[in-house]
């Protein structure tokens, strides 16, 4: 019974194969029946396995399916510990809820069954990634996740934008995967094994430089998969996929793979101060850029995409500050409220007949009260308003960064971490602002457009929303300053890791006040501008604010021109280079050599075929010449003559 946890990994794969083989036979109803039951069964088994695991005092269980080679020690194996257990529950649970939503959202789509095939395949890949007990299986999952996300992003491949977005995601992920692969090679070379446990235990004997190199290469992989600066531009484009798929992949699970991986290698990561600084600074940069970019987007899903990038930045900040529990905690809470927000956006898009521009919405609250309410909960949760989920995790991250500043031995580092804390607080404020704007633009602001035909989304969409809404409120209580639930679950995994502890007593309360203040301030500013229409009610003309505001708006909607910068500096150079390669290597060298060989054969055969006259007499002459040749060889070769 101990190894029950392996079942949920392969159940989605079997479902995917089964649905793929029967895709022509099954109608939508049968497909839905199989996929939903499989997802539910998968979640039930996971839950059962997790409870058994919890009753056994969170003692990690490992299962080796196959020993590939003994030296170096490479196995195909899975493990259930606190970290993978949490991810197992999260992935299977959300997969069920989102599939429930998808059955309604993808109704009457031409490729309905394909969608569920890809979806199940994605869940399988993700579980392979999180449940693996070594780097190799994790890498398989890592790559398969990339493949299935590509399939889902370019699901409506008849749309050129979707096909292009899929390619972009795949190519940018490839840059990260390249780093990840190199990291794995160094690991195999240094430790002679891929097993997490062995690598982590022996990492204490390895020099810091090696660990930093490994960490930085693995970090590149994490940056690619988790959409961190500078590899984040694929995520907003990935919104071309079906909305429920975005909810699962690009909000709740796949993009958190990088965070998960970094927590997985945290016993090694803690030995490298350089890597921690790199993680926290890039995380912070990502959080700020993405939050800034989300401020002036008008696509309902793009705001959420940038918000996801920004929240992932928060998780990286937590890892950089050594608060691994806080990172996983934020991962869990974020998964719920972001899935809620995405599914809510999906419901709105569905009701608006695939309209995604927020300028054409507004005032939908009266038409779609439940969706509006649930989205409101999601917005409050992500903004960090207590006692909703986002508050607990975000506050823990902020407090950890603050505590890290107190722990630093040098004044410079101390000041740097205080600065990081302040900037993170700023990012939290921006988060509250753009999420408030998001909700107000969709549900509140009157754009003078008649929405009287807009109907509330169907029940199959509303139910998952309510479920996620409830979770978004209460999931935060799994790890509060009063009840360290998640910390206990992760205790075994992070056994030898020095986790940054939160400040105690009054300091924690003051920090909480700051983070609540940031959340409320952001929401109030958003309400003043987009709800109360402050700028229309008071005369701002004398402050000459027009041009700075327009500049900010312009920078925000163009993502600080980073995409254009990247296009000019990397993409166009790469394009020119590959065009040259295409002309020179492919055109001249490869085609040239092939053409040369074929034309050489054609020419020589033309010459030799002239000797084939068809006249017997001529053939006799050749025969005679050859005979003379043989005789002269026979005579003049000394060896043969002997």
């Amino acid at each position: 019974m101990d190894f029950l946890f392996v079942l949920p990994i392969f159940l989605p794969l079997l479902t995917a194969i089964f649905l793929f083989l029967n895709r022509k036979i099954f109608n939508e109803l049968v497909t839905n029946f199989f996929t939903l039951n499989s997802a539910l069964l998968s979640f039930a088994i996971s839950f059962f396995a997790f409870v058994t695991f919890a009753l056994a005092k969170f003692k990690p269980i490992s299962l080796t399916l196959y020993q590939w080679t003994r030296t170096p020690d490479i196995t195909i194996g899975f493990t259930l510990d606190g970290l993978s257990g949490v991810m197992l529950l999260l992935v299977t649970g959300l997969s069920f809820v989102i599939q429930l939503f998808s059955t309604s959202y993808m109704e009457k789509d031409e490729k309905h069954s394909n969608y569920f095939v890809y979806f199940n395949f994605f869940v399988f890949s993700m579980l392979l990634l999180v449940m693996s007990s070594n780097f190799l299986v994790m890498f398989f999952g890592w790559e398969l996740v990339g493949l299935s996300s590509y399939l889902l992003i370019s699901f409506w491949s008849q749309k050129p934008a979707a096909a292009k977005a899929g390619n972009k995601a795949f190519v940018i992920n490839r840059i990260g995967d390249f780093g990840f692969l190199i990291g794995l090679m160094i690991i195999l070379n240094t430790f002679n094994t891929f097993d997490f446990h062995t690598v982590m235990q022996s990492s204490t004997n390895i020099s810091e430089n090696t660990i930093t190199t490994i960490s930085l290469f693995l970090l590149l992989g994490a940056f690619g998969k988790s959409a961190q600066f500078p590899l984040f531009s694929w995520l907003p484009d990935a919104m071309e996929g079906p909305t429920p798929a975005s909810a699962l992949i690009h909000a709740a699970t796949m993009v958190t793979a990088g965070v998960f991986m970094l927590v997985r290698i945290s016993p090694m990561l803690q030995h490298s101060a350089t890597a921690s600084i790199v993680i926290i600074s890039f995380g912070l940069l990502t959080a700020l850029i993405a939050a800034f970019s989300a401020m002036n987007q008008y696509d309902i899903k793009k705001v959420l995409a940038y918000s996801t990038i920004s929240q992932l930045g928060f998780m990286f900040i937590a890892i950089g500050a050594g608060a691994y529990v806080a990172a996983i905690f934020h991962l869990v809470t974020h998964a719920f409220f972001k899935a809620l927000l995405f599914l809510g956006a999906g419901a709105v898009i569905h009701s608006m007949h695939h309209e995604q521009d927020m300028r054409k919405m507004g005032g939908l609250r009266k038409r779609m009260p439940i969706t509006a309410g649930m989205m409101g909960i999601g917005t409050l949760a992500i903004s960090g308003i207590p006692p909703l989920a986002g508050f607990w995790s975000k506050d823990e991250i902020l407090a950890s960064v603050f505590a890290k500043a107190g722990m630093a031995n040098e004044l410079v580092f101390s000041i740097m971490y205080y600065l990081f804390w302040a900037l993170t607080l700023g990012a939290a404020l921006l988060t509250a602002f753009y999420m408030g704007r998001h909700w107000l633009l969709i549900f509140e602001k009157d754009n003078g457009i008649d929405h009287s035909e807009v109907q509330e989304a169907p029940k199959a969409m509303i139910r998952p929303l309510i479920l996620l809404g409830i979770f978004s409120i209460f999931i935060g209580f799994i790890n509060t300053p009063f009840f360290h639930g998640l910390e206990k679950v992760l205790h075994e995994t992070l056994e030898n890791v020095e986790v940054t502890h939160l400040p105690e007593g009054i300091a924690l309360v003051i920090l909480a006040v700051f983070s609540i203040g940031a959340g409320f301030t952001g929401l109030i500013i958003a309400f003043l501008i987009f709800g109360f229409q402050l700028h229309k009610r008071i005369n701002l003309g004398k402050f000459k604010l027009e041009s700075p505001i327009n500049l900010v708006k312009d920078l925000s909607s163009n993502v600080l021109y980073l995409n254009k910068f990247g296009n000019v500096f990397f993409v166009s150079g790469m394009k020119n280079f590959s065009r040259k390669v295409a002309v020179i290597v492919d055109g001249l060298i490869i085609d040239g050599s092939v053409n040369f060989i074929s034309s050489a054969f054609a020419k020589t055969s033309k010459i030799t075929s002239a000797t084939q006259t068809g006249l017997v007499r001529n053939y006799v002459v050749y025969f005679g010449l050859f005979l003379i040749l043989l005789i002269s060889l026979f005579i003049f070769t000394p060896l043969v003559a002997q």
Partner: protein
Amino acid sequence: MLEVTTDWYLTLAAILFSIGFFGMMIRKNALIMFMCIELMLNAVNLTFIAASKHFGQIDGQIAVFFVLVVAAAEVVVGLAIIVSIFRKQSSASVDVLNVSRG
């Protein structure tokens, strides 16, 4: 007195073979070419017999019997081909039959 040695036979065989060979090269009548082949075969036979006599061994003479049998069989097939050439065209020239030209 002039003694007839093996060399004489070999020379005769070489001359006969050459005549047959040149005939093959320059004539285009199928019948004549056929006779040239026979001439060459017999030149070879002569060589075999001369060698057999020279070394005092019977092997060469056995080989000649085989050659004769093959030649007889060849005559059957060859003459049949020549007859069919005559049926196809009025002359026995083989130059017209150049379908296998490259």
